[in-house]
């Protein structure tokens, strides 16, 4: 776990490129519904990115009855095992922040898994509202209290 995913909401201009990049990265040919990052739009170019916080004590993992959610030690992301998941959607209901979604078209749950250590949204964000920074640098970023930068 040498990098940390950071969100700096003030920089978000609600362009939506991260959503598209995420959807493409997870193989859905750009269907926006497949995105695991959601921009909560407040105006024409004002938005707040909402994405999985990769909690230390994940509610989703606790709620899963079959152990389909596991913590990846290298990327520090919580991942869903497609083979083990039984689609009961308890995790969707359990996440306090709504970051576990149900993708009806592909009939599976979806969450941010940091793309296995190379988050695809980051290079597409024009304002660096999303970044994947080395752990030591994250601590000196301005808004340390911002959710998403807690590690």
């Amino acid at each position, binding site marked *: 776990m040498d990098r940390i995913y950071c969100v700096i*909401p003030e920089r978000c201009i609600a362009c939506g490129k991260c959503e598209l990049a995420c959807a493409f990265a997870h193989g859905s040919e750009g269907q926006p519904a497949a995105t695991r990052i959601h921009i909560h739009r407040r105006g024409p170019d004002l938005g707040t990115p*909402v994405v999985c916080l990769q909690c230390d004590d994940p509610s989703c993992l606790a709620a899963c009855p079959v152990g389909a959610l596991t913590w990846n030690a290298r990327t520090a992301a919580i991942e869903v095992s497609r083979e083990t998941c*039984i689609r*009961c959607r308890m995790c969707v*209901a359990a996440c306090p922040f709504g*970051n576990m979604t149900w993708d009806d078209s592909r009939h599976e749950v979806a969450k941010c898994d940091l793309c296995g250590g190379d988050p695809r949204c980051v290079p597409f964000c024009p304002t660096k509202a999303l970044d994947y920074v080395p752990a030591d640098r994250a601590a000196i970023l301005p808004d340390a209290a911002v959710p998403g930068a807690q590690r």
Partner: protein
Amino acid sequence: MPTLTIDGRTVHADHGTFLLAACRKAGIEVPTLCEHPAVEPYGGCRLCVVDVTRPEWDGWSKMVVACLFPVEDGIVVDTRSERVMETRKVVLDLLLARCPETPLIRDLAAAHGIVATSFVRNPVPTDCILCGLCTRVCDTMGMSAISSVDRGAGREIAPPFRAPPPACVGCLACAEICPTGFIQFESGTRKRRIWEKDFDMLRCPRCGRSHITAAQADFFAGRGGVPRSYFEICDHCKRADLAATATRLAGEPATPARQG
């Protein structure tokens, strides 16, 4: 780390795992029907039979099911010996007789060279292969609402007394795990119906979206020691709340936000 030989390849298996995992680790595919990572192994379909021997056994070997046989250091495994393949064929031939119209079984049988069953075709074809995945996942979920009933050729999966199961919370895990789609259900925003039992969906008080049933929420709330309300707000609305919190903490003015 136990070291074994599978189909001539040396495999370093993880201690305490079953032979099937070791085969997969070595990239060797062994057919299964009743195995699923979400539930305990069952050993019912018998497709994953393999031949196990040791050098000191002088050629004698035993047939075991890989899903339940614990890895042992020094064993020599053949996943495609003649009698293994023959047994798999008999199993698939029998299943094809029972489920002649089930695509999963037809495909698997065809992959083993069986296009039509040599036995008496089931006069009332069914899609249920009695793999027990549904009952096992229901046990794992904690409800144990359905089980196998009767024995022998009359064995079926059913709720107690074939009535709408009292313990069922409508989580659909059984239907989702069923490999043949035998378990039917209807699910919409307001209602869900499975095993002839009707459920109210747990609808978000703000936007009306739903993902789970109210009964499911009650059951897991009770188990997790949280109030039912914990599950009520839907993910969309929860994301909106998170966004609002983030915005507030960042010192931005709160503006009515579009549901994102």
